[in-house]
């Protein structure tokens, strides 16, 4: 009975993964397409990769996308987590206010947020460019982080931190050694969502940027008057980079724990 269940769930998981990766694989295959079409594969060629690398605009857009995404993720995760923890201890009134305000960027159509920010930046005569894009990204990422961390905080045992402080820990220690580790999954998934939102963003970025600062989404949208297969090449490269990053993330912790256990077994030897 259990085996059937396990196989069944493995198959189900497999189908979901296939579904999620089908377009990506498709994009990768067609990045090597000789022709321009998205449906007919006419031959194998690297030409779109050549075109992509020699395209300054594309390379710049890639750079800005990554930098903004990394910075926005780091900052919004920090601020978001801190705020979420603070919120969980706040009075009901403040909690409600912040939660309501938080909903605004999430539930507003992106274009509305974009226009609102555009109006704001024009109002205070803040020249549009890299910083406005970054600020906008941080702005819409933080609510997602808060949204991710809050459920974890809700299921968190409220007495743990108190207990820690009773036992002599400083608030800072209680924070970093008790609360934060407990909500780590929420923080991590919040950071992941923030990165995704930023990396992928189009509408908001388009309206609040300027000075030639562009990102991949803007480029794809504006350069797709005819389907531009160089974009496929770009996406494939991104997939490769991210996959390598994933592998590293996986290998390093297991290497670290191997080292740890080595050290521990040496210690044990010495004790003996």
């Amino acid at each position, binding site marked *: 009975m259990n085996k059937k269940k396990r196989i069944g769930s493995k198959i189900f998981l497999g189908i979901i993964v296939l579904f999620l990766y089908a377009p990506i694989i498709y994009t990768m295959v067609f990045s090597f397409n000789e022709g321009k*079409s998205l449906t007919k594969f006419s031959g194998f060629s690297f030409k779109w990769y050549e075109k992509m690398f020699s395209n*300054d605009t594309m390379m710049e857009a890639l750079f800005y996308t990554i930098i903004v995404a990394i910075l926005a993720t780091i900052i919004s995760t920090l601020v978001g987590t801190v705020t979420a923890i603070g919120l969980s201890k706040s009075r009901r009134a403040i909690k409600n206010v912040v939660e309501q305000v938080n909903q605004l960027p999430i539930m507003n159509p992106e274009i509305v947020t974009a226009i609102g920010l555009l109006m704001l930046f*024009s109002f205070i005569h803040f020249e549009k460019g890299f910083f406005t894009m970054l600020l906008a990204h941080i702005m819409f990422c933080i609510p997602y982080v808060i949204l991710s961390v809050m459920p974890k905080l809700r299921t968190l045992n409220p007495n743990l931190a108190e207990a820690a402080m009773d036992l002599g820990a400083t608030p800072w220690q209680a924070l970093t050694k008790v609360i934060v580790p407990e909500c780590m999954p929420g923080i991590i998934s919040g950071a992941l969502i923030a990165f995704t939102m930023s990396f992928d963003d189009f509408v908001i970025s388009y309206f609040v940027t300027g000075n030639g600062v562009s990102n991949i989404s803007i480029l794809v949208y504006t350069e797709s008057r005819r389907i531009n297969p160089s974009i496929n090449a770009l996406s494939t490269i991104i997939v490769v980079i991210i996959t390598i990053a994933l592998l590293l993330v996986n290998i390093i912790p297991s290497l670290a724990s191997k080292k740890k256990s080595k050290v521990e077994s040496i210690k044990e030897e010495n004790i003996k």
Partner: protein
Amino acid sequence: MKKKGLALVLMLFVLSALSLCGCGSKEKLKIYLPGEYMSDDLVPNFEKLYDVKVDVELFDSNEMMYTKIMAGDTYDVLIPSDYMIERLIKEDYLQKIDISKITNFSSITPALKEAPYNLFDPDNSYSVPYFWGTVGIIYNTKNVPFEKVQSEEFEIFRDTDFAGKIYFYDSERDAFMIPFKSLGYSMNTSNEDEIMEAYNWLVDVNTTMDPITVTDDVIDGMAQGRKDLAIVYSGDAAYVLSENEDMSYYTPSCGTNVWVDAMVIPKNASNPDLAHKFIDYVISYDVALDNTEAVGYASVNEDVLKTVTAPGGLYDGNEAYLPRTGYEKDEVFNDNEFLRKRLSELWIKAKAAR
């Protein structure tokens, strides 16, 4: 672990700060134009020739461009469409172009200096043409006999023989233009009855013809022969015709939209001098030739036109390439705020009528 993280963040800040301070003392030019509308070699060659840096920004619609201009963004060269240029002139966003600085101006094809192509800026005081063309019917000669296209013209898009086999262009201006011309009205009309008649025409199409209403998917779609009929811009048609020999292009006798995209210099341009040089560069023979070969739209340089349409030329025999000229029923779009809003709302309704 924490320290490492901090160091990484600092490094990133430094990196981004460095990238922001810009590169050196080269002169800068900022251009803003539609996507996929310029040969990939044009800007790098210009940069090398004049030892400058060019920032290229892309927009996918005139309206999006307008929103940014209105918000105060600065550019040196814009490439909007005729009706948008009319609006920018009206609202005083542009500065006059010093034609004496445009040495290649005389090589612009005469058709562009006459009606209807020059109506939005009669003396080229503010603009220098970039690409031009018409809007027409592209059809699959295997499934749609020429005689039918010739006799029905735009009405073929209501001919239920072809239901489910048509593309329609998703833009209120271009969409409304079709019934306006087909019914014999001006496409710039403000007459409410005419507008409603055109609206009902479109509702008819949407309810009986099952059209696919998209923008640029049409190009690949027709190149792959997925549908039999579509409304396209002449430059896109030229591309499709070169990819798919079953396809043909037709400009109807009831008249159609003829258009010009032109280069303009906004009032707040930081480097108008360099802007002039750029404009002059773009319409020069070699550059214009490369540009029209790469993009597919009709060049504004007379000699280039002669070269590519001559026997053996790249667009020889491609009936979509050279736009029709001097046909009195062809019109250019005017800038009309009332019409703009009205059509926008009606188009959404027509689409939703399915």
